[in-house]
């Protein structure tokens, strides 16, 4: 057996009191694709950042091709033949592809020679690996998939033998993801070693040779992909049998609460993100919107929540609500009976520096019952906050603690408590369990179902297909700003939804024999 391309021994890393990596050891054979899977916050990215010289490990050793190697910074990582494609690309947006590729790997002090040489080399790489990109295109004009190719080319240009990809498909369409995996196969054939970090079981099962599972900073197992199953990996990831289905009775939908017709949204860059969609949500049902991130779901929520402008006709309980101008802000939406648990609780749903009690009225702070005279009724708000936190089991139950000091799950509970306790007619909820620990997930799902059972309308947006399938009473799939179709969760499967998410509406081939496959895709 040859020396492993990479071997990590006993890597540990703590951020303050948080142990992000605990005594982690792995060994990756050259010319293989090794998957690292784990939930958000399991420590995958920390581990790879150590490997790429972003963080210094508190303890442990790194061996590259059998040689003990110190990686104090990215420069050393590059020298050791490691290339990394980050989740958020590290490209200079107003530079050309060529400029981005030579940045940091220039050939001498003058640019002209470097650029000339890089142009040739790029042509060579493109032919070898099927990585075609226009070298003179400016990055900001390229699609996300092409930008990712530039990142891979950057690594290859630096003669990387080991390529690390951190959640590479998060922003890709299924078609783009397929292309990516074909490229990775090609790279493997050429003898490169690839580490693929993801939380998607399907990608691990489809592409990797071996897989390591991380949970709460620890490596719980390393297995051959061919000798494991999605169920086993899922169990290893979360530490116990996952509850894929939420207990709920069939919905009894009532009157239409939200009616959207011909909604269009243009973003700040002038790109149309939502391209004329129609949908309705009725009282007592959950409409789930599935889709790969970046297909207009976020913009849909933003317009409904009142913090982006749109065009079209939206009626709420039979009354049309404005989509631009004064009457279209978050306050007006709340007055219209719309509550909103936003996708990004840290940037939108909460003020991280505010105490929990201040956050329990965020967005409702102008309500009459929170005022005493011209001042805010801080004492009253605090007392109410304490009750809400007790009811939603927020830990620690201390309203005076700043939001930033709560865990992700407890922060989400604070947002949820605030929005649900308002007794809204319609609840918008985006990525309800992103970065939330498993215990809190169940609680949050249960709260959403309870609200439905009280006869409220719920619009759920999630990129987690499992979540969509287990919570929704109806599923609409968004792709490229359009709704590709609507399905009954009982009569569809992940394959069919996956095709819709990729923009393929002809799904007749996969609707038969759906249920077994849904299980396999776990």
């Amino acid at each position: 057996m040859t020396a492993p391309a990479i071997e990590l021994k006993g890597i540990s890393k703590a951020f303050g009191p948080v142990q992000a990596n605990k005594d982690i050891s792995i060994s990756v054979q050259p010319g293989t694709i090794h998957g690292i899977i784990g939930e958000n916050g399991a420590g995958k990215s920390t581990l790879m950042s150590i490997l790429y010289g972003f963080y210094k490990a508190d303890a442990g050793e790194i061996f590259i091709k059998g040689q003990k190697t110190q990686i104090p910074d990215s420069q050393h990582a590059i020298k050791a033949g490691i290339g990394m494609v980050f989740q958020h690309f590290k490209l200079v947006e107003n530079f050309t592809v060529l400029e981005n590729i030579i940045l940091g790997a220039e050939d001498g002090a003058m640019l002209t020679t470097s650029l000339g040489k890089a142009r040739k080399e790029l042509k060579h790489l493109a032919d070898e690996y099927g990585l075609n990109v226009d070298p003179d295109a400016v990055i900001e004009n390229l699609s996300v998939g092409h930008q990712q190719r530039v990142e891979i080319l950057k690594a290859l240009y630096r003669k990387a033998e080991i390529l690390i990809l951190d959640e590479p498909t998060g922003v890709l369409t299924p078609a783009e993801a397929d292309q990516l995996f074909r490229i990775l196969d090609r790279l493997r054939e050429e003898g490169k070693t690839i580490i693929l970090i993801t939380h998607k079981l399907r990608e691990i099962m489809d592409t990797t040779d071996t897989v390591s599972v991380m949970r709460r900073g620890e490596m719980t197992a390393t297995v051959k992909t061919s000798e494991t199953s999605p169920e086993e990996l899922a169990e290893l990831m979360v530490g116990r049998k996952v509850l894929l289905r939420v207990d709920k009775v069939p919905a009894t939908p009532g009157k239409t609460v939200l009616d959207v017709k011909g909604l269009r949204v243009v973003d700040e860059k002038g790109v149309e993100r939502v391209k004329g969609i129609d949908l309705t949500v009725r009282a007592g049902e959950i409409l789930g919107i599935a889709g790969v991130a970046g297909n207009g779901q976020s913009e849909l929520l933003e317009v409904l929540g009142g913090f982006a402008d749109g065009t079209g006709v939206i009626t709420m309980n039979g009354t049309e609500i404005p989509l631009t101008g004064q009457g279209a802000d978050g306050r007006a939406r709340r007055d219209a009976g719309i509550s909103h648990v936003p996708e990004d609780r840290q940037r939108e749903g909460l003020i991280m520096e505010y105490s929990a009690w201040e956050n329990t009225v965020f967005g409702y702070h102008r309500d009459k019952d929170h005022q005493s005279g011209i001042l805010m009724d801080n004492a009253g708000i605090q007392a109410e906050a304490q009750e809400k936190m007790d009811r939603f089991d927020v830990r620690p139950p201390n309203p005076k603690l700043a939001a930033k000091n709560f865990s992700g799950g407890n922060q989400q509970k604070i947002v949820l408590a605030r929005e649900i306790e308002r007794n809204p007619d319609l609840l918008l909820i985006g990525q309800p369990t992103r970065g939330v620990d498993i215990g809190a997930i169940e609680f949050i799902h249960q709260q959403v179902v309870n609200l439905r059972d009280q006869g409220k309308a719920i619009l759920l947006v999630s990129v987690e297909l499992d979540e969509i399938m287990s919570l929704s009473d109806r599923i609409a799939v968004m792709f490229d700003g359009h709704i590709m179709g609507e399905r009954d969760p009982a009569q569809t499967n992940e394959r069919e939804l996956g095709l819709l998410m990729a923009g393929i509406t002809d799904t007749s081939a996969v609707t038969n024999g759906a249920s077994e496959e849904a299980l396999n895709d776990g």
Partner: protein
Amino acid sequence: MEFLDIVQLLDTSIRLGTPLLFACLAGLFSERSGVVDIGLEGKMLIAAFFSAAAAFYTGNAWLGLLAGIAASMVLAVIHGLASITFRGNQLISGVAINFLAAGMTVLVAQSWFKQGGRTPPLTGNGRFGNVELPFAIGPTEAEAAGRPLSQMIGEAGPIQQLYSELISGHSILVYLGVLAVVATWWILFRTRFGLRLRAVGENPAAVDTAGVSVIQLRYAAVLICGVLCGLAGAYMATSLQAGFVKDMTAGRGFIALAALIFAKWRPVYAMWACLLFGFFQALETRPDLIEAVIGMKVQIQLLGALPYILTVVILAGFIGKAIPPKASAEPYIKER
């Protein structure tokens, strides 16, 4: 108004535009690297004082220049420490540096020279002399002919007037300023350092993950900024004027900042912007000319505010859009 008046007005524009140009290029390097510098004014001021003081003691303008650059670089290092090493607020650091320079120059000037915060006037080699180009009519020719220079120039043809007044007869630093524009352009767009510098101002994470030190690049930019501010200040005290007086930069650092925005952070545009703002300042010295041209009295005070007003208009995006480097004013913190 005669042709010679215009030539002389432009000549003054060049003289007054030069300190702006050095400061503007200084700001360009700093801001292109993502470090905003509103302390150009302070660095110019301290350079003006120390260059004048050193030139006075040594009788050598070049040694004065070196002292000015050194003083300016001390402040540049402070700005670097605050904004790069300690990831502080770059704007606040700039404000502090301006006050530090405003206070220290007077304090030290009073302690050394006891003339109420000024240096004694510089004479002889303590100032940069004017370079007389070949074939130009300059003081040497006038002396040889035994006639007043102004008379000789007045009698010369327009081409000779243009050449002798506008092109020839400036301090060596003025020519250095033009050279600095070309050099800046070349460094920025033709060298590896320039590529990295532009990248670090747009997306420092890209530079960092490419294995290049963000901190080193930014320090390099901030130090270059110090050198150029040193040139700007030294020019003020040892070339444009003969010695240092309290607060002699009088807001030029901010006009340079305005010019930088006006020029959209590009070197050649920067030169034109500085010449334009130098022209406004030159007009302030010749209200009679304006009156002769437009036939009415113009408020000198308001003329002085013109660069600022123009900059606000540009910033407001009514004429084009001034978009600063993306990572401006943001300290770089490593993130995954």
